[in-house]
């Protein structure tokens, strides 16, 4: 029991939680805005992979860390555009298109990486992001190490949450996005373009998703491994429902998840000899399924989610 308290009371634990949560924050925010506009983006797993590979590769080729971040975002936007065109003006199945984009983005990323860098025993590494030492704030007891010694991308994620909430609830663009996911006819009757709104939102959301992948190869680790995304994209889709498509709840959900993951890693060192490692590794996925079950009855899906809209539809 005291071990548990020890874990929970260490700043190190909370720092780890936030670190583990960061890619999820990017993913959930990206997925959330796509779904708010009415488009389910199952390409997220592939976009994570593409962001991870493209960002890392850009740095490897000399683009600098923020250059890599930009390239990752562009890769995400590219695959997002494919998904957007297939599902919005062409009105094809969002499920199949998403799975297709995931398969395409993943296999393309693996192919490019493997072709550019032949197989070696340990994958090549880059100089990853270092934790930012924010003056004054990082000296604060407990909160300092927990919150203010993170890498830049984590801070970017947090800023993005606030920015998304602001845009969604306080700007005309956000209003239009909220409306187009509920009733596209409402948007069209007010003279706005449903297609432009949805395509733009999906592209932007995909760019944000890709940053989650970039975090993995440029911050959490410093190399690209096959299979490193490992289902995080799908977990984000589950967390989006859990967050009721609200940025604030998305942050809380991602943090809770990160905390749980950080906790089970530490717990494993305590009881690792009795319980097989796989049990702990299963936890994130089972937890995501549990999260979906918990909110199932109340889930307030955007009304127009998954429904293609054709201009002039009356």
């Amino acid at each position, binding site marked *: 029991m005291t071990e548990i308290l020890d874990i929970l009371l260490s700043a190190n634990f909370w720092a780890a939680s936030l670190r583990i949560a960061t890619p999820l924050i990017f993913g959930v925010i990206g997925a959330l805005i796509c779904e708010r506009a009415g488009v389910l983006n199952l390409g997220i797993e592939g976009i994570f992979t593409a962001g991870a590979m493209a960002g890392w590769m850009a740095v490897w080729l000399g683009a600098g860390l923020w250059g890599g971040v930009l390239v990752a975002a562009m890769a995400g936007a590219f695959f997002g555009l494919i998904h957007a065109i297939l599902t919005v003006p062409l009105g*094809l199945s969002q499920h199949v298109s998403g799975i297709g984009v995931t398969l395409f983005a993943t296999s393309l990323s693996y192919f*490019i990486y493997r*072709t550019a860098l032949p197989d070696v025993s340990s994958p090549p590494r880059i100089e990853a992001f270092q934790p930012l030492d924010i003056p004054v704030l990082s000296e604060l007891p407990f909160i300092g190490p927990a919150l203010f010694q993170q890498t830049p991308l984590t801070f970017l994620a947090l800023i993005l949450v606030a920015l998304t909430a602001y845009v969604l609830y306080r700007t005309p663009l956000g209003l239009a996005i909220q409306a187009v996911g509920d009733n596209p006819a409402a948007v069209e009757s007010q003279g706005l373009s449903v297609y432009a709104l949805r395509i733009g939102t999906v592209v932007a959301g995909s760019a944000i998703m890709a940053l989650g992948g970039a975090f993995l190869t440029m911050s959490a680790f410093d190399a690209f491994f096959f299979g490193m995304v490992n289902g995080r994209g799908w977990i984000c889709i589950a967390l989006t*429902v859990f967050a009721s498509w609200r940025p604030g709840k998305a942050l809380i959900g991602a943090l809770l998840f990160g905390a749980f993951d950080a906790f089970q890693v530490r717990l494993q060192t305590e009881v690792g000899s009795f319980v*097989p490692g796989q049990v702990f590794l*299963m936890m994130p996925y089972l937890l995501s*399924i549990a999260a979906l*079950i918990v909110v199932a*009855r109340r889930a307030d899906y955007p009304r127009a989610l998954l429904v293609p809209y054709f201009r002039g539809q009356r």
Partner: protein
Amino acid sequence: MIRFEPRGPASLRRMLAVTIAAAVAALVLAAIPIAFAGLSVFDAYGLMVKGAFGSLFAFTEMLTRAAPLILTGLAAAVAFRARLWNIGAEGQLYAGALAAVAVGTGLISGPSLVLIPAVMIAGALAGGLVMLGPTLLKTRLGVDEVVTTLLLNFVILLFVQMMLEGPMKDPMGMGWPQSEPILDEAALPKLMDRMRIHWGLVVALAASLGVYFLLKRTVWGFEIRAVGENASAARHAGIPVTATFVRVGLLSGALAGLAGVGEVAGLKGYLTADLSPGFGYSGIVVAMLAGLSPVGVVLAALFIASIFVGADSMSRATGVSNYLADLIVAMALLCVLVSGLFLRFRIRLVGDHKSRETAE
């Protein structure tokens, strides 16, 4: 601007033409990554064709690869017909393989006539039961089955790893995490001497015919189609929608489970954690290429299997990454998705500001 005009129902000929066009388009697009890898495009295609069809061995290898793809393709086709998005065929395959190994490595003993069906039933049951959970969550609670089936894939794979490193580990396996070998009586016999092709292919073909018959000629098939096309109208007409979804889920999972049985009891003889190179996911591409038709699934599986086997061979010969195969398969999925548009609409280019409109 592009204008779409709705077309009447598609003839079989048009469907075939459009699908073949999509497959060809994917192959043509493959030229880009091949060129990126620095290879002559025609050399690469030539090596791929040789790798899949160039010898009896190559051909049977291709057929061997097609067997599980037919089954996972059927699993996806059956489920997608009912709009039950089963993306968990990969996990259901492993569940089936695990069950086959649990039953077939000495749990019961007897002649082939008993053990082979036992192993197949165990695998099918395991796969079906794995799909039951997400199906019930969908019908009872409205939980999206795409995410639950996807997440379960990871869970099951970890479970298999756990079993293979623990209770089901082969004590004579020299430390590798693999299961004990299947008993000879439980193994699916080979179809040809000195080749790897086995009776799993026959099982797959029989399953394809069975599913075709089910969907086209039985009441259950009718109900599955009705529920998939318009679940609320089906419910209104008195069709038991939940029961139909459960049936579809069980069948879909069972088919994927059988794929696992075939790989373990027909091909490899024991279970390892890398049994499937993504058969479950490729099955989705197979189903879409087949237009969700059970008979079409066989053809599509042969196509996808050729790509995998051909690309493997080309990869060994040239050093080009065999992720090329996954890339081609992924592009095939996107191409066939777009090709569906050509079935439903006639595409015209018009000069002025018109868009897709439908009459009241």
